């Protein structure tokens, strides 16, 4: 499963084997917090099955959905690459989830044994940096409908990279959660989704969006 992923799949076979030897399986219940924003990074993980949400606190209390991950999705890279800096977002299980986890100590052992492999790990983050930078620069000028379309196409793109699948991608996400991602009310989101559906970009299902493009 991991070898199908865009990041892990491109690692040298030797490093893949070293990482696989260090991974442990961890199970989480629905709604359990896997990584808590602000707490020191403890390692990085890949979703084996189930779904997680990447959330970020904004303002005093609200949390905004930033990303949705399913099997093959890696998280915790920022806290790990920085050697245990406070996490910049939370990872929450939205279904029962099993993850393959690489503890920070095991990561540090790998890069101490071969410092060159740090650069291979860093690719997991530099790919996302480019996406995030683009959002920051472009999103302000976009109307909510285009911003929603961009985000859904990117979620589908990342999903295809994690699972090496082609064609339409189903993203399991409630409209209430999606509304926080775009910063609109639940009602406005519903209207935006209907317009994207009419444009042939998506099909909406029950707690699920199928991205066609």
């Amino acid at each position: 499963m991991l070898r199908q992923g865009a990041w892990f799949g491109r690692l040298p076979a030797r490093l893949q084997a070293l990482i696989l030897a260090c991974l442990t399986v961890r199970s989480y219940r629905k709604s359990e917090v896997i990584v808590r924003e602000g707490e020191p990074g403890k390692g990085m993980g890949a979703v084996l099955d189930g779904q997680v949400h990447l959330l970020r606190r904004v303002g005093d209390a609200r949390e905004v959905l930033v990303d949705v991950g399913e099997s093959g999705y890696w998280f915790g890279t920022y806290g790990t690459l920085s050697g245990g800096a406070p996490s910049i977002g939370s990872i929450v299980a939205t279904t029962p989830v099993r993850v393959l986890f690489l503890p920070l100590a095991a990561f540090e052992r790998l890069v101490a044994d071969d410092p060159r492999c740090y650069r291979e790990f860093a690719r997991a983050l530099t790919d996302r940096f480019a996406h995030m930078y683009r959002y920051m620069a472009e999103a302000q000028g976009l109307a909510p409908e285009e911003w929603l379309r961009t985000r859904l196409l990117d979620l589908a793109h990342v999903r295809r990279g994690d699972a090496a699948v082609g064609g339409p991608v189903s993203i399991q996400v409630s409209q209430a959660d999606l509304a926080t991602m775009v910063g609109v009310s639940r009602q406005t989101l519903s209207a935006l989704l209907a317009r994207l559906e009419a444009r042939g970009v998506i099909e909406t299902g029950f707690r699920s969006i199928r991205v066609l493009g």
Partner: protein
Amino acid sequence: MDDRGPILEFLQQGHWFGALDTALQQLIVQRSIVVRFEPGDYLIEEGSPPKGLYAVLEGRVRATRRLMTGRDAPVHVGGRGFWCGDYATLAGQPTIGSTIADTRVRALFLSAAEFERIVDEEPRYYRAFMALLLERYARVFGSVAELHGLPSEERLRRRLESIAAVWRDDLPTNGPVDIRLSQVELASMVGLSRQRLSTLLGRLEAQGLIEVGFRSIRVRG
């Protein structure tokens, strides 16, 4: 004026560079060259192969990103001590934005080839360079979450504070930071109309957080 000693001492004040091993600091400065730009010159052009890392020694630059309309939208303005070119150089990927001289600029330039030579000779140094990109990632990630999740006044305040925080990392000061952007440019950065921006700036000024000048916002210390 291009002596390496004063350049090293100046850059050591910066948050990222100052935290590096002295040996790496010296290596970076030794293997770099000093380059000069006129206003409007591109230090880095979006979409080009990785060129290397620049540190602004004198003058001011702006980081921009080309929109679908073809317009270059400002993402950040950087002054003395500002580092750029980090993403493309570290990732070995085409650049994701442009960096343009706003004034006459003197900069230290470590080419991508020299960067590769440094990390090839001592692979542990790659991680030290990565600390710069990790700082940036944390800021960009926060800004993306706040893009559509905050009321506009709060969003504007946080964006100004975030730009000021980068200036304070580049060259520590407890004093105010002047962000040289026109209100039209700032409005496009935070997704507001020029009129709405003006109203919100007035409110932030009344709260004592900023002072509004000509093509410039002063963020209080």
